[in-house]
Structure formats: C-alpha cells, structure tokens
C-alpha cells in the first residue's frame, strides 16, 4: 500500500523531542524538567487542566474557592507549565489511544552519512476535538493510578462511590451530597476524604477503616521522614474528633431503597482482616469507599513493557531497571504508574524521568548525572513515606471474604464471583482463559477494575499468579467517527489488493 495513500485519513502530525502521557505531578514535573533542559515537549492529558487526579483544579465555574494544598500545587504547576509555553505544548482534553514504534524515515534519509539509520520514533495517536498524531524520540509514561474497591454485595448501588471518585467531586465541584455519609476503606485516603467532607459541611455518620490504630503506629517511623505530611494527617484527625471512628471494621453489604443507597452492614475484622463476630447496621445516603490504588500500566504495556507482580507497590508494575531506567530505548516511566509511592515521590520521579530523557536526547549518559544523583536521597525519603501509606492502603488477605459468590465482580459484563469460579472449574487457569470464556474484562473498562479481584479468585482456586491481560488499543473507548474520519470519496479509501482467490 503506498504510504501517501494510507495517510490521507490522518489529520496532522506534530513533532516533539519528548512526548509525555499524563500531566499529573509526575508527568507535569517531567515536562518542566525536560523543558528547562531545552527539549521540546508534547504533554498529553485527559483533563482540561494539568495536575492529574491529586492536584485536580476547582471547576472554572466556581469563582471564589478557599485554596487547599492540592489546588495550590495544581495552580503552581499550571503556571510553571505556562511559563514554558514556547517549548511545552499542553494537549488538554486529549486521549492517547495507540502507541507505536516506527522507523524515523526522515532522519534515516538525512543522516545516512552519519549513523546507519535505524533511528526509531514513538508515534502516539490522539483522540481529541481535532484528532492528531504526535511523533517523538523519547516517551515518558506518567499515567498514575486508579482506585480499587474490593467488591461486596451492593457495591454497585447508586450512592456508593470510590474514595478517589469522591475526592474528584470534592476538589472540582466543592459539592457534598445531603444526608448521612459513611467513609470507609483502607489507608490515609479515608481520613483525607472524611476531613474534606467535614470541611465542606457534609454530615459524617461514621468512619470505618480496615486499619487498626496499631497499623498506623507501625507506619510512624517511615512517616518521620516527612513530618510536613505527618502534621497534615494529624490535622485531619483533629478536625474529625467528633466523628465516630470504627477501627478494624469493614462494610460487608450495602442495601438500597428506591434504587439508592439506604443502609450499610458492617462487621469487625480479625487479625487476618477476615470479618468475624456480629453484623451491625447503619443508615447512610452515601458511602465513600476504597481499598488502595492500582498503578495504571496500560500505556506502558502498549509501549511494549512486561509486568511484574509487586504487592508492596500496589500490584502489577512495568518491568524497569531499579533506577526506573527504560528496558526499551527512549521509553521512561515515572510516578504512581510504576508503583504506588505517593505524590511527593511522584514529583521527584518525574524530574528524574525528565533528566533521563534529556541525557537520552543528547546521547550522553553523563549529561544529567549530577542532577539525577541529587534526587536520589529526597526521593528515597518520599518513597519510604509513600510506600508506608501504600502498605496501610493494601488489602489484608482475609478481606477477600467480603466478596461472596453472588457478588458482582465484573461490572461491565455483570459477572459474579461464582461465574469466575465456574470458568476456572473448566480448567481455565489464566486471566486470558477466564476473559475468553466469560468476557470478564471485555467491557468498556477493559478490565481495569476487575483484573485485581479476578487475580485473587484465580489465586485462591488454583494457587497461580497470572498477569492481567495485555493492553489493547484504544486505551479508552473512542467513537468510530473520531478514529476513522469519512473519506470525501469512496475511491479515496486505500483498499489495496483483494485477498487471493
């Protein structure tokens, strides 16, 4: 097929030294660092404003909002990126749907007298108002993380939302729903969300955390390295002193009335995190619940990286060298997308990736060595804090018992835990085989939300650890009209030769 003909469907191609997927703390700081070092940057992000999930901006429709540390950090990042407007192109409201590795034909032709040309480019297909293509020699993946909720009966009822989903609402719209709110789950996010709801005037009925006080005491040594963050956490607890806190407790079931959350069941947990003792009930109009974060690895997988299982980092993470350096030339991964270490570590990790990309572009491994070395100790301190929080957020093994056989585990395809077990009983012993047989993870979410619980069930039934299925393009569902613009004339379609007779 002649290339000029096959290209007619593509609108425009823009070039940058480095393309960065994700404009959160890691990607944003990678962009700043690369720009400071003279690189041109294409910074691609799904949100209208930089800052990612954690530094999400207040909606532009809200004029006067009291600043929070998150909104201030987000504003500062946006301002810094704007100062580099000449070299950083921020593609907002834009989704990368495909990543390809292609030959740099132009440079190979030009540089034939220098190095024999097998220079490669990253080619990113972007769905946005104007679909376009970005080509870059270096690619930084900074896709962050998304939330996990261990499924329990009733978790799909309207009125039950994730902790991270709740923070998005609170940060962007400053909205708190009417009625009694229960905040539950694991780790520090429980207390952050509860404190924000309280600050914005919501009615907190109770906090129910899977963690014990002892869990928190155990994390203290790691937290001492970042007393600023520790102080902030203590501030949340002071604010929440009048709210009943149930330690070592889990929500086990949600009940609906008129298709909306009405009441919750909860039980105390034993040392292994398994519910034991009596069931209690509490009225609630809203439940914010979360059980830790999962690294979003799909863009890294699409770029060609394999995954390894690292429970201490939140689950499956891309295979990288210990310093985060690329296993594939010109590819860099930073932030929570390569393991959950929190926002403070993500900023420094983003800078590290920006420096590594700079050294790569200059073809000089020494170029940014000193600057990278200066990041090592602060990063280690921040990462230690972050990983202690990840440990507090991670699921105790016994908590899997809240997912009963009748519980929906794959929301897109309405599959229960029993459906998954039935497929395993036909000797489906990998994620892929379960996916094929039951369509688990084949809906719009692409397995993002169910792969962890299916992994748990597989492990419980067979003892095997199976990686999540490979990432497929498009990374998110995209309208066909965006992916394939209609040609002016049918004859313009580059159909090529018919199949053999």
């Amino acid at each position, binding site marked *: 097929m002649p290339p000029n003909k096959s290209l007619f469907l593509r609108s425009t191609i823009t070039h940058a030294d480095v393309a960065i997927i994700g404009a959160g703390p890691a990607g944003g700081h990678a962009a700043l660092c690369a720009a400071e070092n003279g690189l041109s940057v294409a910074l691609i992000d799904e949100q209208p404003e930089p800052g990612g999930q954690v530094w999400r901006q207040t909606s532009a429709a809200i004029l006067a909002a009291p600043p929070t540390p998150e909104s201030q950090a987000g504003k500062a990042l946006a301002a810094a990126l704007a100062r580099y407007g000449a070299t950083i192109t921020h593609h907002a409201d834009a989704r990368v749907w495909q990543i390809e590795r292609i030959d740099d034909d132009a440079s190979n032709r030009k540089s034939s007298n220098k190095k024999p040309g097998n220079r490669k480019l990253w080619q990113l297909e972007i769905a946005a108002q104007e679909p376009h293509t970005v080509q870059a020699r270096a690619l930084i993946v900074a896709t962050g993380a998304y939330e996990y909720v261990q499924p329990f009966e009733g978790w799909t009822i309207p009125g039950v939302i994730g902790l991270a989903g709740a923070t998005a609402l609170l940060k962007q719209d400053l909205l708190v729903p009417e009625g009694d709110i229960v905040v539950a789950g694991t780790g520090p996010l429980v207390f952050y969300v509860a404190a924000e709801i309280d600050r914005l005037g919501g009615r907190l009925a109770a906090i129910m955390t899977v963690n014990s006080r002892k869990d928190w005491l155990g994390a203290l040594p790691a937290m001492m390295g970042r007393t600023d963050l520790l102080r902030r956490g203590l501030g949340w607890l002071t604010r929440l002193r009048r709210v009943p806190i149930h330690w070592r407790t889990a929500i086990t079931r949600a009940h609906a009335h008129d298709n909306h959350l009405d009441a919750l069941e909860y039980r105390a947990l034993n040392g292994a995190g398994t519910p034991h003792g009596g069931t209690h009930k509490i009225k609630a109009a809203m439940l914010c619940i979360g059980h830790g974060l999962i690294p979003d690895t799909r863009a890294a997988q699409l770029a060609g990286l394999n995954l390894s299982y690292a429970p201490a980092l939140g689950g499956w993470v891309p295979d990288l060298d210990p310093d985060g350096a690329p296993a594939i030339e010109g590819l860099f991964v930073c932030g929570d997308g390569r393991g959950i270490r929190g926002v403070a570590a993500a900023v420094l990790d983003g800078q590290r990736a920006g420096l590594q990309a700079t050294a790569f572009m200059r073809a000089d491994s020494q170029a940014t060595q000193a600057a990278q070395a200066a990041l090592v100790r602060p990063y280690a301190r921040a990462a230690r804090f972050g990983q202690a929080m990840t440990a507090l957020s991670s699921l105790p093994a016994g908590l899997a018992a809240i997912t009963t056989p009748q519980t929906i585990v794959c929301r897109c395809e309405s599959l229960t835990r029993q459906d998954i077990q039935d497929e395993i009983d036909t000797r489906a012993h990998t994620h*892929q085989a379960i996916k094929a047989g039951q369509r688990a993870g084949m809906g719009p979410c692409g397995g993002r939300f169910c792969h962890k619980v299916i992994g748990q069930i597989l492990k419980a039934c067979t003892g095997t650890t199976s990686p999540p299925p490979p990432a497929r393009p498009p990374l998110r569902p995209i309208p066909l009209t965006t992916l394939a613009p209609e040609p002016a004339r049918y004859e313009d379609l580059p159909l090529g030769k018919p*199949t053999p007779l």
Partner: protein
Amino acid sequence: MSEPFDIAIIGGGIMGCATALRLADGGMAPIVIEQGDIGRGASSANAGTLSLQIKRVKLMPYALRGHALWESFGQAVGFRKTGGYTLAFTAQEAELLLERQRLKADAGAPIRFISPPEVRTAEPGLTERIAAASFCPADGFANSLLTGRFYRTRLGEAGIPYRTGSPVRAISRDKTFAITTPGEIITARRVLLATGGWLQSTARLLGVDVPVRTRINTVSVTERAPPLLSSQVGHATGLLTLKQKDNGTVLIGGGWQGHPNKEPSHTSMGRVNADTLRTNLALARYALPGLDQTRLLRSWTGFEGHTPDFYPLAGALPGVKDGFVLGCVRGGYTIGPYMGQLMGDFILGREPEMPLFDPARTFMQDSSL
C-alpha cells in the same frame, strides 16, 4: 523413564486439538503441548467468520465439511448460521464479485446473486450505496473466544493429556522424539507440528526449513449497540467482515495488516497499525453507517501462517521419519476441525477422505498477489 506417547502434538490450537481427538478415537495415545493456553492463539484471536464466500475455490470442498463440523459443535462454540452477504460498492468491485463468487458457486458453495434492494430489505442498516451483492445461506459465525474452553473440555472428555504454558525449546531424535519444555522432557514415537504462525521456528528445531510467513490480521470490536445487522457481511475484495453478536457488539475484520513483532511472544505475534486500522474502520463505517453512533472498545491482531502458494501444509514432515506437519490452512478457523480429522486419519495409516497437501511440494508463488 515413563512409556513414550504414541505421538506428541506441538501446538494446542484448533488443528492440533482436532488431530489429537481423531487419533485418540483411532486408538493412539497422544499428548498436546501448548506454549500458552489451549486454543488461545490464532484459534481465538480471529473474528470467528464462517463464510464460504471468502474461502479459496480449491479449498471449497474442505470448507463445506468444516462448516458442517462447526454447526455440529453448536451452542458450545456459539455457532450461528445467519446467512451472509458480500457487497460491492463500485462497478469494478461488482465485476470482481461476479467473477469470484461464480467460481465459488461452481465449486459447490450455495452462493447466489441478489439485487441491492433485496439486500436492503433484509438488512436495512446497510448502506444505500450497494452496486452488487451475493448471498450464501450457509454463512454465519461462531464465537472464537470459546475455542479454548471447547477444546479443553473435548480433550478432557477424551482423556487426552495436555500441557499449557509449555513452549518447546528443543526436539531431539533417538529411538523416539524427546521434546524439551521448561518443566519436563516428553518422549513420543511420532511428532506433529501444528504451531500455526510459529511453524517455521518449530520445524527448525528438527532441522527442517518450511517456507512459512505470517500475516498479522487486525480485528476490532465495538461497544454494545442497538440492532444494526443480523447477518454476516463481507466485501467483494475480502477486505471487510462485519457481524453483530447477540450481546450487541459489532466485530470488524477483513485481514488488515498490523505490525509484526520482531520477537513474537506467545501472547502476540503483532501489534495494531493505526493506519491500516483507520482504513478498515472507514470501510466498515461506509458499509454500515449505524457504526457512526458507536465507540470502538478494542482492536487486536490475530495471525495466520501461510506458504508461498497460500495452500496448506498437511502431511509428512520432509526428511523426518514419523514427523508430521499441519498448518497454513487459509481459512483455518473454518477448515481446521476438518483438516485435523484428515491429518489424524493419515497418521493412523488410513486413507483420508480428501487429499492432503504435501509439505514437500514445489511452491509456486501465488500470482494473484
């Protein structure tokens, strides 16, 4: 050392499993050795099309028998005989359609030509811009994702042992074949290579060069949509297949080529190429305008091995006594179960119902390519 198996079948796709079942039926003790999961390679990554209108003329007798087998598998593989339309959108394509489908009808497929208004009455969701069309009532599709569970279950019922996650690293030949996998060494009196797109590298383990290349075929699926289409639909050039599954998702195929992987893993031999995908989707939108209201959920690449003449390898492995090879069947999803039966009969020393395809033949380059 344990008693050697009568035959080790390397490759647990449709061809390998179907042959194993025939051999066990004939009294042999086979073992199936698969690098990934049973039926999880090309056997399930394809679009599940069962259409006589896209089969090669010379393979039509095989395809007719393959269709009958899929129909007999029924619900377990999600078989649906919907009838199928092949569409032409220009005068040139109409000419191609007429010429090709007539030859396929002469070869025994129940294909007839129908007028564009007839097509639109049956399938009002299709474009108004149809120049010519053919119809085959025998066409339809199956759910290729169920291939794995189907053959796992059949192997289990027949008591045929199989190994998964067992890529073959080496094959040596003494009195018997010794097949090295990461977990064990398996011995067998005979060996059948049925590794599809990997046939070239597998045959090299026995010092044989088979002229196999791999095509990387793109397949896509939309999210659930309202009813748009009730039949299988193809294109005069063979470059489009469309079908809507019971759950409302629309599968889009047509053999558009992805990028081959330099180092193929057992999970994929290739990757999606956005340029060919765009053309594939644009053609699909042209044929079925209702797709404009849907989102694409996922694209992936299936694959198929092929020889220079695009006919199968099915018979004795040249230069290796008690060695056999089966693969490169164009339309392998449709014809595979039947080829497995023929191959089984050949290995059992029986006369196959239809001729096989000698792997030692001189390959002529297909001139139509």
